[in-house]
Structures are given as structure tokens and as C-alpha cells.
């Protein structure tokens, strides 16, 4: 069964450093998302991406964040200068054409980011 894969599974970084989280969505999906979950808190929407551009983003997704689909298969989330409060589990998700409007997302297993 096709799945969304994320790397790394866990990254520890120093405050102020740049971090890139990588995702390989399901191959025939067209819509891509990043969500995050701070430990013990709700899952929060960060950004959605379609047709090589951001479709929607939340207030969390400020200028420190960026997304890119550099090569047609990977979908990356970059945090330019990490802060302590960026420590969270980051989930990548994708959805196909038919599921876009019904919200059935397929999630990766997450990348845990720890900022020291």
C-alpha cells in the first residue's frame, strides 16, 4: 500500500539553526500539507501546497517557514532559524484529486524536532 514517508524521524538542533524536514508524498497525489503537534497539544495546520504553490497557510507559518517541492517527488519544510517553541512532531500529509474536498489525508509517521 502506498504511503507517505518522512525523514528524519528525529532531529535535534540548536536554537537558531536551519532545519529541513523531508517528505515523499504518495506518488499520484496532488495536494500536500504540513501539520505539527506540540507534545500534549492539538494537531495544528501549517500549510497546504498545490500546483507548486502555497494554497493556504496558518498564522503559525510565518516568514521563518518555507515549503518546496524541488524535484517532483520530495516535499520539504524548512525552518530558517529554529526557536525553542518549534519543538514538535511535524507531520506531512498528501491527498489525491478526489479526496481534496473531502479531507481524507494520508499522513506520514512524523518527524520529531527537538530544539535545544
Amino acid at each position, binding site marked *: 500500500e502506498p504511503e507517505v514517508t518522512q525523514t528524519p524521524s528525529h532531529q535535534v538542533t540548536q536554537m537558531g539553526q536551519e532545519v529541513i524536514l523531508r517528505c515523499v508524498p504518495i506518488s499520484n497525489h496532488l495536494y500536500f500539507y504540513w501539520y505539527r503537534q506540540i507534545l500534549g497539544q492539538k494537531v495544528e495546520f501549517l500549510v497546504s501546497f498545490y500546483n507548486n504553490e502555497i494554497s493556504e497557510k496558518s498564522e503559525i507559518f510565518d516568514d521563518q517557514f518555507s515549503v518546496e517541492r524541488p524535484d517532483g517527488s520530495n516535499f520539504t519544510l524548512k525552518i530558517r532559524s529554529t526557536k525553542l517553541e518549534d519543538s514538535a512532531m511535524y507531520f506531512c500529509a498528501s491527498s489525491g484529486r478526489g479526496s481534496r474536498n473531502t479531507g481524507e489525508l494520508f499522513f506520514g509517521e*512524523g518527524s520529531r524536532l527537538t530544539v535545544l
Partner: protein
Amino acid sequence: AQSVAQPEDQVNVAEGNPLTVKCTYSVSGNPYLFWYVQYPNRGLQFLLKYITGDNLVKGSYGFEAEFNKSQTSFHLKKPSALVSDSALYFCAVRAADSNYQLIWGAGTKLIIKP
């Protein structure tokens, strides 16, 4: 404001008994409602959704959910719980003014005891 509430942080059920995990929502317009499950150290897995049609929706692993418009609820149910159902369950609703963004409940930890 659009929101999802899961009033129980944790639900404990004996194996073989029926289980219910509660969810209520507040959203303008017709809601698209979802349940996802998260097993330890795993990602979120889609269980079921309500878009339109029958109020009782059946999903994966024997789960079902009942949409109740008057009570703005979408409770998750299973007739007979298994120990392997123990996990974190999230209710989510698609925001009415968004084609992409899901709004999530805080999650309910379900513990099934043998």
C-alpha cells in the same frame, strides 16, 4: 469560531464491551467530519468520514460514527472493543471557508483493558 471538542482526555473500556469516543463541533455551513487514529510512535491514520448521506458512517477496523446535526456531534463507536484498539483518537472538521485546512480536536486516549 470553528472548533472541535473532545470532552474526554481518556476513555477506559473493558475488552469486548462497546466503546464510544465523543466529539462535538462548531462550524459554519455543512461540516465535513473525520476521525483519525494515532498509534504510539506512529502517524495519523484515517478511520472514517462524514460528508453527506447516512448519518451512520462505517469505517476501518470495525469503527463507526454517528453524525447528529441537532446535537452537532460525531461520536465514534465500536460494538466490541479490542485491546489493539488502544490508541489516541482525533476528531477533525474541515473548515467551511477552506478547501484544505482541517481543525482538530485535542484527542482522546482510548485504553482497552483485557
